[in-house]
């Protein structure tokens, strides 16, 4: 499965950033092939507005099937939903731990945004 996790840093040992749109990095992980890739999101961190939208675009461009993050706001959620990407919220710890949480069914599959706009 192709997963993107919002991250503070660029490795599997980095901590999950609970913010989606304004997380400094995204970690792309393909659990089938073991392939990983770190993607810079400084454009989102520094965006005046629409950080969640452009972050959702990045996740879509990476070809991810699901997003793992702490929280997801309304515009980001709408965009991810339109792109057909599943959103899992409530992740914490390292990227590796977050993926374990996803695989063991601990994370919540979101049916809507869990925070308001401009949360991060």
């Amino acid at each position, binding site marked *: 499965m192709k997963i993107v996790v919002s991250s503070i840093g660029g490795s599997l040992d980095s901590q999950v950033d609970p913010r989606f749109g304004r997380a400094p990095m995204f970690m792309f992980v393909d659990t089938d092939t073991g392939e990983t890739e770190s993607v810079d999101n400084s454009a989102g961190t520094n965006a005046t*507005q*629409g950080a969640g939208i*452009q972050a959702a675009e990045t996740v879509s461009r990476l070809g991810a099937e699901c997003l793992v993050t702490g929280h997801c706001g309304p515009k980001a959620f709408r965009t991810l939903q339109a792109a057909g990407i599943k959103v899992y919220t409530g992740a914490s710890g390292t990227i590796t731990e977050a993926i374990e949480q996803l695989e063991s069914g601990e994370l919540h599959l979101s049916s809507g945004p869990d925070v308001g706009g401009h949360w991060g």
Partner: protein
Amino acid sequence: MIVAIASGKGGTGKTTVAVNLALSLPGEIQLLDCDVEAPNAHLFLETALATREIVGIPVPEIDADRCNQCAECSRICQYHAIAVLGTGVMVFPELCHGCGGCTLVCPEEAIREVRRPIGVVEKLRAGNIELVQGRLNIGEALVPPLIREVRAKTRDGGTVLIDAPPGTSCSMIAAVRGSDFVILVTEPTPFGLNDLGLAVETVRTLGLPCGVVINRAGSGDDRVHDYCAAEGLEILLEIPDDRRIAEAYSRGRTLVGSVPEVRPLFLSLAEQIQDLATAVPELQAEKGRARVCG
């Protein structure tokens, strides 16, 4: 001649000065209420609505048949109002600032611009005053385009007064830019002084000459006077701190109509403004010099 009435701090009395000055000037006056988030000059005048027009900004509409998802539109949009996804293109009209960049860069000509209404511009008549006001739709964040539409109604010739929005941000600049003189209204308090300083810096950067009106004079301290003296700013008028003024205001009455002692104060301000009008060519020259320096 175009005179803008502005202030760094909100609630200092811009509208009070604008309305009472308009009533104290002779002849046909145009008053532009550019505080489009809370236009209130009309509350103090007996007005009749003449015209109303809807103001909109151009937002993109994507032709899905032509779009090849190249994402040029998304890349140029600083406001992230367009998202290109594997499944299609999403537009967030509420984030669009209407710059038209996406339409220009689209190689497939797949973008058509449609108008999204953001507010209205109304013309009202009150005696010898033509009041033009912008009213921003509730929940709308995009202020300057509507202010520019109000400013576009500025008449050629005659006296035009602009009631600017408070602060020193884009909306205030959109309101005062291109005026001949700016009246900065303040109050003799620490907040009034601080925000007057910001407003003076702003209008000087814009190359506009300015003078100061102190409202609620006597209620605070002398620091605004000291600041004006140190900066070489002329104090055009001091409105006394008087309960009757607050009472008149709270009932939507004009000061010149309800507090007799205030009338000569505004007549004097009106004379100073008329004197300035004769000096407009000099002011223009001063503005030119300021631009060169800036």
